[in-house]
């Protein structure tokens, strides 16, 4: 089922060392180290403003680090050699303007574009796109407009678009927003398959602790610094999380000064203690 070539498992694909990133003057990420090897499925969790999206955008080369560096296959993120190796599923990928009459096939084909293919006549694009549509399980909807798909189907299409450049590393920013519970599970299964059968490396940022905990191999808790990095089964409970964050533990529903709670869907909402950090 592999698309073109299958990367060697266990090889280091991404290394982040001593990374600090500022956004509009504030240090959002300070001095973190992270190494990811091929074939891993990693969930990054943390509160809003904790630096999750910032980390993703820095790995993509969209944001510049203040200090430290990022290597993808031992090259800088913006280097020609890493072009197409990293796929991105943006936050709110499911927000497609209603007046845009674009079909699933057309949408996924956009993912195959690279600097080199800009002017070239591109052969085999059709077969490649159809193969990806098969992988993500949207065969029935090949010529359906994106606007007519459900949230979960759009998310699949967005994953397909990210895969279309033969990406080995897939970075996903809140992919479960706007997706119903049932589709969440099937998308997690799709990602799990991609990971195991095609050796894709997946880094997924999410609020939805419950659904990623079941699937990912490794969890990272990021709140300015990495407070936890390890296997999923030893990921601490929420009360212990507060300890990790160096904040007084509070229990959901108790008191008015709580800074985190879990709703019925297992989604953590953490009220950012901006002032706490400063004091």
């Amino acid at each position, binding site marked *: 089922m592999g698309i073109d070539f299958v990367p060697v498992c266990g090889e280091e694909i991404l290394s982040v060392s001593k990374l600090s990133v500022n956004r509009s003057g504030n240090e959002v990420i300070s001095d973190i180290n992270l190494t990811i090897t091929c074939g891993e499925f990693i969930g990054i969790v943390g509160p809003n403003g904790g630096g999750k999206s910032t980390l993703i955008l820095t790995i993509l080369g969209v944001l510049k680090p203040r200090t430290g560096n990022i290597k993808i296959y031992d090259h800088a993120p913006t280097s020609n050699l890493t072009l197409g190796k990293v796929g991105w599923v943006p936050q709110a990928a499911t927000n497609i303007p209603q007046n845009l009459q*674009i*079909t699933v096939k057309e949408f996924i084909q956009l993912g195959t*574009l690279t*600097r080199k293919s*800009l*002017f070239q006549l591109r052969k085999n694009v059709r077969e490649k796109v159809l193969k990806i549509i098969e992988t993500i399980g949207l065969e029935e909807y090949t010529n359906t*407009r994106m606007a007519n798909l459900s949230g979960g189907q759009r998310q699949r299409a967005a994953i397909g678009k990210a895969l279309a*450049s033969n990406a080995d590393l897939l970075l996903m920013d809140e992919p479960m927003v706007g997706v119903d519970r049932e589709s969440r599970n099937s998308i997690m299964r799709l990602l799990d398959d991609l990971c195991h059968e095609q050796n894709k490396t997946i880094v997924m940022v999410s609020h939805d602790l419950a659904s990623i905990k079941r699937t990912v191999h490794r969890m990272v808790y990021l709140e300015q610094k990495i407070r936890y990095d390890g296997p999923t089964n030893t990921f601490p409970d929420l009360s212990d999380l507060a300890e990790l964050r160096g904040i007084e533990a509070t229990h959901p529903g108790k008191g008015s000064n709580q800074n985190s709670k879990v709703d019925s869907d297992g989604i953590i909402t953490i009220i950012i203690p901006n002032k706490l950090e400063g004091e």
Partner: protein
Amino acid sequence: MVVGDLVIEILGPFLEFLEPLIPGEWFPLYFVKPYFQRPLIAAIFVSMVAGFLGSFLLIRNLALIGDGLAHVSFGAIAIGLIVGMIDPLYWAFAICVVAAILIDYLQTKQLLSGDTAIAIFLTGMLGLGVIATRIWGGGTLSSVEGYLWGNLNLIDSDSFEFIIIACLASYISLVVLYQSLLLISIDPIAARIQGLPVRFISLYWSILTAAVVVSMVQFVGVLLVTALIVTPAAIAQLLSRSFLMCVILSQILGVITVLLGLYYSAELSTDSGAMIALVSATMFVIVAVSKSIFTRFKASDNNSN
């Protein structure tokens, strides 16, 4: 005049061949005399490119950029005519490119939102054009005002040459950059990550838009340029099942609009630009209304089953 003459040489006999089939008393004139053939050919070329470009402008929510640039070109043409330039279109094109790049810059740096940047350029240059004509214009006033409403007589062999070259170059560019422009319009960050030269393409895009707008100001008129850029693309959006279909349909609709507009303006001896705008708006209303009736009919049909 090389390209323009070549186009007339190739298409002229074909138009003459069609002439007996064309209805109307005055409209067939467009098909026989080179003097009238030029505006007809120019209008068809421009409407195709405008429809193509319009499909992209609509998804970028830049429907009014055509309007903005047309007003900029009015100011530029007014000054060009006062200074005594023979080919005001080239001069207007240069100024429009600068304006389009500035608008794009202000948007990407998020100094101003799209509409605001366009509005400032639009009003500023229109004001400049009018004031300059009033103060220094003298005899040029009437010919400058021809550009406001559009006048087919303005298309001489020089402007025809400009229009044909601009249209051919824009059309080829749009075909080549089709995928890249679509990706940049939907998701500029993804385009950057995939290694596309987003800055360069956006810049080139601004130049394209300026070229298309400037080539249509003479016969549609500054105030009505948007009719050919936005309306056919908007109708196409209502009818399409894919983006490719949208692009093709908006070109076909553009050509139909122009032919109907020129037909009615010739038969009723009215302004060509105003008639084209009126025809395109009428087409939009007809399509939108019949579509909503059709969907409602279909829905009630499904319910009864």
